[in-house]
C-alpha cells in the first residue's frame, strides 16, 4: 500500500479520518500538523504501519480523561514525533542507502 492508497478513498483511511474529526479541536489541530510533519520525514512504515492509527488510539484515550493535548504529549510536539519514529528508517535513508550501496542515514 502506498501513501496514495491511504489517501484515495480506501475505506480504512476514511474511517481513520472520521476518527480524527471526532477528536476535540485541540487534538485535531495537533494530529494534522503531526501528520504533515511525518509525511515530510517519511518513515517507511507510515503507509501501512500502526503509527497513525496508534496516535489516534492514544489521543482518544487522552481526550477521554479530559486532558488537553499538550498536557498529554508536552509542548514540544516535534520531539514527540521524533520519539515515535526514533528507530524507524525513512524513505530518505533507504534512498541514500540505495545510492551509496551501504547502510547510511540521512541524518549524517
Amino acid at each position, binding site marked *: 500500500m502506498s501513501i496514495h492508497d491511504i489517501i484515495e478513498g480506501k475505506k480504512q483511511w476514511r474511517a481513520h479520518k472520521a476518527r480524527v474529526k471526532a477528536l476535540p479541536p485541540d487534538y485535531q489541530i495537533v494530529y494534522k500538523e503531526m501528520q504533515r510533519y511525518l509525511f515530510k520525514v517519511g518513515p517507511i512504515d507510515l503507509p501501512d504501519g500502526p503509527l497513525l492509527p496508534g496516535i489516534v488510539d492514544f489521543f482518544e*484515550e487522552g*481526550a*477521554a*480523561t479530559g486532558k488537553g493535548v499538550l498536557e498529554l*504529549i*508536552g509542548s514540544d510536539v516535534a520531539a514527540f514525533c521524533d*520519539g*515515535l519514529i526514533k528507530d524507524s528508517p525513512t524513505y530518505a535513508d533507504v534512498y541514500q542507502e540505495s545510492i551509496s550501496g551501504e547502510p547510511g542515514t540521512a541524518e549524517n
Partner: protein
Amino acid sequence: MDDLTEMLKGTLEGCVLEIIGSEETYGYAITRRLNDLGFADVIEGTVYTILLRLERNGLVQVTKRPSGVGPPRKFYELNEAGREELAKFWAKWQYVSSRIDRLKEGRG
C-alpha cells in the same frame, strides 16, 4: 528533582520494562507509577513513544481491553524477548552505576 530529562533518556525504557514486568499494565498507569516514584516530569506522551518502540521491537504482548470510561485501553505484558531485554538492562545498569560510584569514591 527537576531537569532529569537528559539523564533519564537512556534508562526510561528500562524502567518501563521493569514496571510492565511486574504486572500487566497500561500507559497512563505506567506514567503515574513513574511520577509517584519521583520522576514528575515524565508525561504520557513520552511513555507512549517508549511503548510503541517496545511493541515495534517485539518485546511486549499487547491486549486491548474495554475501560470503564472512553475507548478501550491497550494493556502491555512482557514476552520472552522482553524479559531478556529487561535482564540486559539491569546488567548494564549495574555495570554503569558501579563504575560511576567507584569514580565518585575515588577508587576508579
